[in-house]
């Protein structure tokens, strides 16, 4: 066990993957000497060389497109998108090429590409640096989409994603990069990549979340507990596939569910959760699945982002409402 920040855990996970497999490459803007603007690739170019840790031209479509080509040649590229808001120039390559190549080839082509995206708000940044674009990818068949929320998962999930023969979009909760926790770097006996995890058991209501909002949900659960309400918090970890079994088992028990994410609620990932859970647990639900998320607006200027992001009070408010239904 070592204590690592989430950022450092990712860095160690990447290093381990590169050590284990010489085909693993890192590509992106400023990933070399700088180690990325969040230092996630810090030191890797120094140790693995410029051929394996590649500072690319400033062009996201080019980065993902050439990563696909490298994967076709047998490499396993891990692509860094510098900020969530800059993944959009690459969306065409991700949606029309990366996601569909396997089907196009009737299974003959494998594209083990990982697209890392630091996501979410709360760091006081300017426009385009606080987006939560997960739905654009969860709706795209052929991609696997995961989101880590803590250092231990960051360490294991990045390695599992790199090992995946399918392309993976990997969301990193940027405002949690500096959170610290114990990480067991000795074991590889990890929770499966696509399994959700009950991070706090409870009996009265199920709160579902992923990525940066998980921590807020845990805080809300503690606060609710002080008021005598037993909140179960599930960290989904994987958005596509969704571990619906773990989710429905919980909601079957509690009969109430609140979904929390930073992305805008309208047409967001929470909609899929609500729709699917309702189908599965129709007779068990005491209230509709409620969604707490970003408002259905563009991300606001940072001075008021705390109002946009779901916070403890808004989560508790939704929990309360499920009881008052």
């Amino acid at each position, binding site marked *: 066990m070592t204590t690592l920040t989430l950022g450092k855990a990712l860095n160690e996970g990447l290093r381990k993957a590169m050590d284990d497999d010489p085909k693993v490459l890192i590509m992106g803007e400023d990933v070399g000497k700088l180690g990325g603007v969040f230092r996630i690739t810090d030191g890797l170019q120094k140790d693995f060389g410029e051929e394996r840790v590649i500072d690319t031209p400033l062009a996201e479509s080019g980065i*993902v497109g050439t990563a696909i*080509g490298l994967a076709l*040649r047998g490499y396993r590229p891990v692509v860094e998108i510098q900020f969530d808001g800059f993944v959009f120039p690459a969306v065409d390559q991700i949606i029309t090429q990366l996601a569909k190549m396997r089907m196009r*080839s009737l299974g003959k082509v494998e594209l083990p590409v990982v697209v890392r995206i630091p996501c979410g708000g709360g760091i006081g940044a300017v426009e385009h640096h606080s987006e939560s674009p997960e739905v654009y990818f969860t709706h795209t068949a052929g991609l696997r989409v995961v989101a880590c929320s803590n250092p231990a998962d960051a360490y294991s999930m990045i390695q599992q994603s790199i090992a995946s023969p399918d392309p993976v979009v990997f969301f990193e909760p940027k405002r949690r990069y500096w959170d610290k926790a114990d990480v067991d770097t000795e074991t590889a006996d990890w929770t499966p990549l696509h399994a959700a995890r009950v991070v706090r058991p409870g009996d009265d209501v199920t709160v579902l979340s992923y990525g940066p909002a998980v921590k807020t949900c845990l805080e809300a659960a503690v606060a609710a507990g002080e008021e005598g309400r037993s909140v179960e918090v599930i960290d989904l970890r994987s958005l*596509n596939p969704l571990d619906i079994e773990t989710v429905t088992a919980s909601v079957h028990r509690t009969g109430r569910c609140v979904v929390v994410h930073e992305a805008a609620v309208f047409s967001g990932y929470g909609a899929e959760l609500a729709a699917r859970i309702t189908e599965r647990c129709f007779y068990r639900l005491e209230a509709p699945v409620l969604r707490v998320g970003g408002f259905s607006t563009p991300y606001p200027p940072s001075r008021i982002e705390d109002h946009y992001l779901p916070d403890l009070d808004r989560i508790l408010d939704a929990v309360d409402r499920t009881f008052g239904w």
Partner: protein
Amino acid sequence: MTIDSVRGAPGDPGPAEPELVQLLTPEGQRVEHPDYPLELGADEVRALYRDLVTVRRIDLEAVALTRQGELGIWASLLGQEAAQIGSGRALGEHDMVFPTYREHGVAWCRDVDPLNLLGLFRGVNHGGWDPAKYGFHLYTIVIGSQTLHATGYAMGIQRDGVLGTPSAGATIAYFGDGATSQGDVNESFVFASVFNAPIVFFCQNNQWAISEPLEKQTRIPLYRRAQGYGFPGVRVDGNDVFACLAVTRKALEAARTGQGPTFIEAYTYRMGAHTTTDDPTRYRLKAEEEAWKLKDPIERVKAYLVRGDLADSAFFEEVEADAKAMARELRAACLALPDPEPLSIFENVYAEPHPLMTEEQEQFAAYLASFEEASR
């Protein structure tokens, strides 16, 4: 003068008969070019002729099959046979091709069964051959995307450390004149030049992007695009199979030996419609097509063979008959192509198990079974 003196007039795609590398005139006359010496035995020329005729015949058959409703659509290569066979026959074992949707001639050179191409346009799959097996990637329909894949693959070749050795390969990316406007294609020029990747950009300038003439994409000759990125650009007579062969060979060899990318503009013409659903009479003049007919890529090789007494009428008849027979077989095989199983929709989406695939597949299977039960 720091300002580049070349201020191309807008809408002027260069001279009508641009300077281009030519080794065989439309009349079948062999000419020499100092940069591109080429020696071909009679056998080799006959083989090229056979290729040209064969792929034209396959193409014709596919068009006919489409008219008869057997294919959903077809993108004809008519007029571009020399560009494709010339460049295709320049390829070596270790090279990797990244085609668009029109490179049936190159596919032929890479031993991809034409039936595979027909399958795609018939709608039984989206391609489905094994790119690694043939050194020929899947057809790519989203304009320009494949140029980045080709560049990345070339960066992989570099990383394999084989450049300059006998097992060195290069990549060749095919694309059209229209594609040169796409961001992806220009990004591929950036990556290829910055990393000095072993790649040949082979642009078939067939003068049209569906209904849009060349001047909607550029105001100077396309081969000069490469200048902006610092690698060589060359314009070759795309209806001259010898020139296409020689120019592509040289560019591929440069790539394999670590000299980086080359841009080749094969100046040719799309003799047919964009695809079988297109109607060129809406946007271009018959006279233009007629003028290009005189530059037919096959006739000039035939003239060369005849003129040099390198082939007799028996040869020409045999080639014709073989092509016809192959087309007949191809047609039969196409008609016999089975439709995919409905449940195959869920296959090949992911390599590893995915619960939603399983769930939807099971539900759909049960749903389909309910009809069978009902009809029993």
